């Protein structure tokens, strides 16, 4: 049975995050390609967002008017979004085993042409999702005048794209207090540590200087994550950025905090070890 979007306790959220992580491993091992590190590292964020009573959504009516929306700007991290949506009941979990296959609705990067419930936009060219999310937040707040909220997750390496800061500037300019972005700050990208490839720090000061309400949070503390999302809802007149400090590959011993796991799937033996780690 899928989990519902009623607020779960932190203990239950932790259990759901574990199930999301196992689903990520299951889908990646049969896909034989795809990204492990980011999805495992951000599973707690997704558990809090979708099962912490934060977002207003209905898996039986995925395109309902006035819904809250989520945009995965870091499109390559889609295994975690697919696993989350399946656990929320947007589509059967068995479909996770079609990831990246020919004709699957679970494309290697989210493709709106496949009409997968819960996927608001195609994404995968980094930086663009965040601007799309800003446009959605403008439609809700400035045009429709409704109370729907828009969430968008970016990687920290993704912040190197200049268009990110154009999106941030406009979210602030339009005082989009219905807009909440999350930075998955695992400090890893394909080529290495963020500070070695192209330094984006300090983050908090940057977002504050763009007039964002900025919250730093332990991205594996489920109670703190839910609290941060709730705090964001109470902020008026400015958008919120939640900087979630995470570890890439969280929960799988041999992947944790290792940037080499950014873009690789586990092989069957590694998947077995990963599932054992996650069961422990």
């Amino acid at each position: 049975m899928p989990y519902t979007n009623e607020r779960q306790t932190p203990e239950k959220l932790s259990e759901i995050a574990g199930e999301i992580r196992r689903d990520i491993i299951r889908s990646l091992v049969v896909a034989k390609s795809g990204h492990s590190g980011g999805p495992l590292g951000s599973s707690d964020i997704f558990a809090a967002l979708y099962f912490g009573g934060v977002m207003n959504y209905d898996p039986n009516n995925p395109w309902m008017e006035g819904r809250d929306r989520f945009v995965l700007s870091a499109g390559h991290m889609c295994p975690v979004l697919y696993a989350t949506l399946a656990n929320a009941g947007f589509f059967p979990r068995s479909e996770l085993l079609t990831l990246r296959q020919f004709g699957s609705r679970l494309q290697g990067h989210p493709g709106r042409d496949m009409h997968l419930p819960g996927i608001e936009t195609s994404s995968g060219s980094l930086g663009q999702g965040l601007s799309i999310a800003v446009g959605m937040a403008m439609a809700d707040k400035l045009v429709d005048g409704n109370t729907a909220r828009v969430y968008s997750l970016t990687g920290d390496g993704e912040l190197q794209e200049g268009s990110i800061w154009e999106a941030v500037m406009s979210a602030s300019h339009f005082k989009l207090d219905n807009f909440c972005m999350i930075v998955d700050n695992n400090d890893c990208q394909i080529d290495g540590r963020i500070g070695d490839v192209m330094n984006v720090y300090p983050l908090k000061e940057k977002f504050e200087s763009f007039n964002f309400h900025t919250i730093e949070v332990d991205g594996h503390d489920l109670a703190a994550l839910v609290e941060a999302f709730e705090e964001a809802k109470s902020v008026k007149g400015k958008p919120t950025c939640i900087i979630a400090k995470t570890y890439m590959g969280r929960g799988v011993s041999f992947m944790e905090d290792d940037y080499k796991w950014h873009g690789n799937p586990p092989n069957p033996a590694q998947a077995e070890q990963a599932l054992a780690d996650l069961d422990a």
Partner: protein
Amino acid sequence: MTMNFEKYDSKPTRHGFGEGLVELGEKDERIVVLGGDITGSVMTSMFKDKFPDRFFSIGIAEQNATTIATGLALSGKVPFFASYGAFCALRNADQLRISVCYNEANVKIGGGHSGISVGPDGATHQILEDMAFLRALPHMTLVVPCDYVEARKATVAIGEFDGPAYIRFGRSATPVFTRPETPFVLGKAEVFRPGNDVAIIACGPMVWEALVAAEELSREGIEARVINLHTVKPLDVETVVTAARECGAVVTAEEHQILGGMGSAVAQAIVKNAPVPMEFVGVTDTFGGSGDPDHLMEVFGLTSEYIVKSVRKVVKRKAQESSSIQSITQVGELGEGPENYPKPGEKYPMEELQKAEANYPPEGVPEKSLEPVG
């Protein structure tokens, strides 16, 4: 001419690019390389390891990298920037147009993971429109090597002249069928197989497919001239037009949209000088999708099979006048053209998914993906 198609090894063209950069770096101290995070994928990591002082990591910022490259070039360096073609041909299009080409800056771009053969990453990463833009840019040189050996030569060649250039290469391993001694001159198309019944003009990995098609056609009594048009711009008009005049029919083949690509360039040269029937093999005005690279090449009609079909059709057109009107993206005869990417639910219908749901999650590690229907 008979080719032994079994005897060739396969290697990705991107390896040729990486080795070419190192060769250039050894010869010319002005060569500098900019990284866009995915240096191991596009093989700029080879240069980074050898010449760390002349490598600069720019991060995931293709527009910035392109304009920084311009600054380096205007200060006397010879910068190469490489990323996936999806992000270093079109995301930075304005930078390429104004900063690089309008300045005639000596900037070289390496577009990796080009075409549909990127495979499971899906449509976002399968660049199929780059050549349409790049060949429209004044001052731009656009080269699409046919194999690993040629990719190395082409990389060195674009590093040795002064002006903007783009080299397009792929991710997958493809047959290595040229030799170090095979002639390669930028801007000069090479006839790889003689023939006078039809000319097949191809670039990139489609040159191999053209050679395979020519062998099959030869068994049907059609002798095809196969031309490796590695330099899409500037176009070797003389070789193209000569082929049209001598063969009387032309088929082009490219791992790119039919609209605006290499075939369009060839068509302009031919229509202007020696109008003959033409057919085009390429992607038919559609996006790609996730899948196995070889399977995608088949589904989207980027194999020798579709070249053969197009040759049969063009040879027929040569012999008789036709009054029918066909879409410019139709490949082969009606009904035998490539398929489109499956619609949602076609391969994995909901009832199949729901049946499978009963056994989810599987015990332990799942062994294979769900079986698609059909």
